[in-house]
């Protein structure tokens, strides 16, 4: 009983950490440019498919595909940002949502065309499989790997934002974009780099998610909702908020699917709508 509970808690937390990696980029870019980017899930999917293609068609080891997934998603997003997104920074929420939904639809069709509609098979290396047993408790090695990776990424992000010059520029742009521009910051450039980093993280998350979440062309839409929940509840541009929300979301999702499977995603959406009504700017919002 207790062992089951602890192991569910562990799985939920690992799942939440994965959601954090997937969605933290969206939180920062949304907070900075106020751009409603619903294509964030598509960036994650790019990372996932790049990793799959490298592993299954070219025989790369899993760990080596992760940086490539990061770079591919970052590059993809920057191209889109330069070509399409920048035209709409001053447009309404509605136009931004629709443009990015258009991109999501296209990416779903392209993924189906290139890779087929089936879930992609993935073979994790031996050292990431199996379980560690400690007395009554047992933990999946891959879940542990997810948690450790997410914690490292969080650490790097916090250090990068708090202690580097670029991080200071990012914070300035989030807090007051007009003032930052007035002081001579190249806001366009800062945003482009932040956007690339955030989307790269999504790509990395997409590659990490292949095993626990499964990868098929609907990934871009299916997990978009989770990402948006993390951002909306966590509050815009708040790493701390995104971290706690993602962790909580993962735990709630795993628990509700285990203990009350017949109501499925119901609890999740109910909690999200409830929290948004209670605090429209996010529970952990800074502003």
């Amino acid at each position: 009983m207790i062992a089951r509970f602890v192991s569910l808690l562990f799985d939920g937390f690992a799942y939440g950490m994965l959601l954090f990696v997937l969605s933290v980029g969206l939180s920062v870019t949304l907070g900075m440019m106020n751009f409603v980017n619903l294509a964030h899930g598509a960036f994650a999917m790019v990372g996932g498919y790049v990793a799959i293609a490298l592993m299954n068609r070219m025989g790369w080891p899993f760990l080596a595909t992760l940086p490539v997934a990061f770079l591919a998603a970052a590059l993809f997003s920057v191209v889109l940002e330069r070509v399409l997104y920048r035209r709409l920074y001053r447009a309404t929420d509605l136009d931004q949502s629709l443009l990015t939904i258009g991109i999501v639809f296209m990416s779903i069709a392209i993924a189906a065309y290139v890779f087929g509609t089936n879930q992609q098979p993935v073979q994790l290396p031996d050292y990431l499989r199996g379980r560690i047993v400690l007395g009554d408790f047992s933990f999946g090695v891959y879940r542990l790997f997810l948690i450790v990776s997410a914690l490292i990424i969080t650490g790097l992000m916090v250090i990068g934002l708090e202690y580097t010059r670029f991080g200071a520029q990012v914070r300035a742009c989030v807090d007051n974009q007009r003032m930052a521009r007035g002081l001579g910051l190249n806001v366009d450039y800062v945003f482009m780099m932040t956007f690339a980093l955030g989307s790269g993280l999504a790509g990395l998350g997409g590659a990490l998610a292949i095993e626990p979440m499964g990868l098929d062309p609907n990934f871009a839409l299916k997990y978009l909702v989770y990402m948006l929940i993390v951002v909306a509840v966590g509050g815009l541009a708040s790493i701390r908020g995104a971290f706690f929300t993602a962790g909580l979301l993962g735990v709630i999702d795993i628990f509700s699917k285990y203990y009350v499977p017949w109501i499925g995603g119901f609890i999740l959406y109910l909690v999200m709508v409830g929290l948004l009504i209670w605090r429209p700017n996010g529970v952990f919002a800074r502003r």
Partner: protein
Amino acid sequence: MNAQTPGAAFNPQEVLRAQVRWRALEIIFWVATLAPFVLTPNYLILCSQIAIAALFALSLDLLVGYSGIVSLGHAVYFGVGAYSAGLLAKHGWGEPISGLLFASVVTALVGYLISFIMVRITHFALIMVTVGLCLLFGEIANSLHDVTGGDDGLQGVKMWSIFGIYRFDMFGRTAYVYTLVATFLSFLVLRRIINSPFGLSLRGMRENQRRMPAIGVPMKSRLQVVYVISACFAGLAGALSAQTTQFVALDALSFQRSAEVLVMLILGGAGRLYGGLIGAAMFMVARDQLADMNPQYWYFWLGLLLVIVIIFLPNGILGGLAALIDRVRSRRS
């Protein structure tokens, strides 16, 4: 729009009356909706689906186009309308017209309850809540498998004849007449609402959210009223869909349907009354043609269409046409 000569007394009733007047193009448009009976009698089923989609888009236009409220979850009302009409018919009362009324009343009630949430929030949170509610209702319908049929859809919907005379035939003749009449009557009502002082105040809220309360407009209650009206007509569209196809699929409540109806509206041009109608017609015909090739890749063309419309035609096709006509006119004079 209301260019007045300086010094002349401004008469608001006159302005509204001028908008209410029927233009020749409008009459031509509605006469043209009868053409499928003669020209494409094999496509009447598609035509009735277009009429339903047009009504659905029109109901969304009231929110998005006229009141400036974004909704990515409008399928909630379509689905509630479809399920209430379908369930009523399945459980023994298959009379179509009272079924429509029943469904729109139920949907209006749901819209009224939801409107209390909607008027409290704005911007990103609003988009998220509309999406969330859409998913929530989808989950509810999915888990109430015994009532709604869940994934298999609601089967066994038996409709009676209209007025006890006109049976729903397999060529869709009755269905098209029925949906067309319903859509036209709803259009008349919505057109009247939009061109009323109430409709003007909606546009005022769209243009300036701060000034309207300052000049004494009770924003929240107005928004609630428009939510209920919009929900009611979306429910009507859903009910029409359930009655004419005699089936309700789970995707009546899906996020995809919410996105599609927005696409229709934006494609045609929001806030132009006919935008939703023309957008719906183009969208449904394009889907019918493209999905024939390969249903899977229809989404690619849909996405491409969205990107092109948003980047190049921000006011939709009607907006683009209006700008073109303006340019030609100003060159002439």
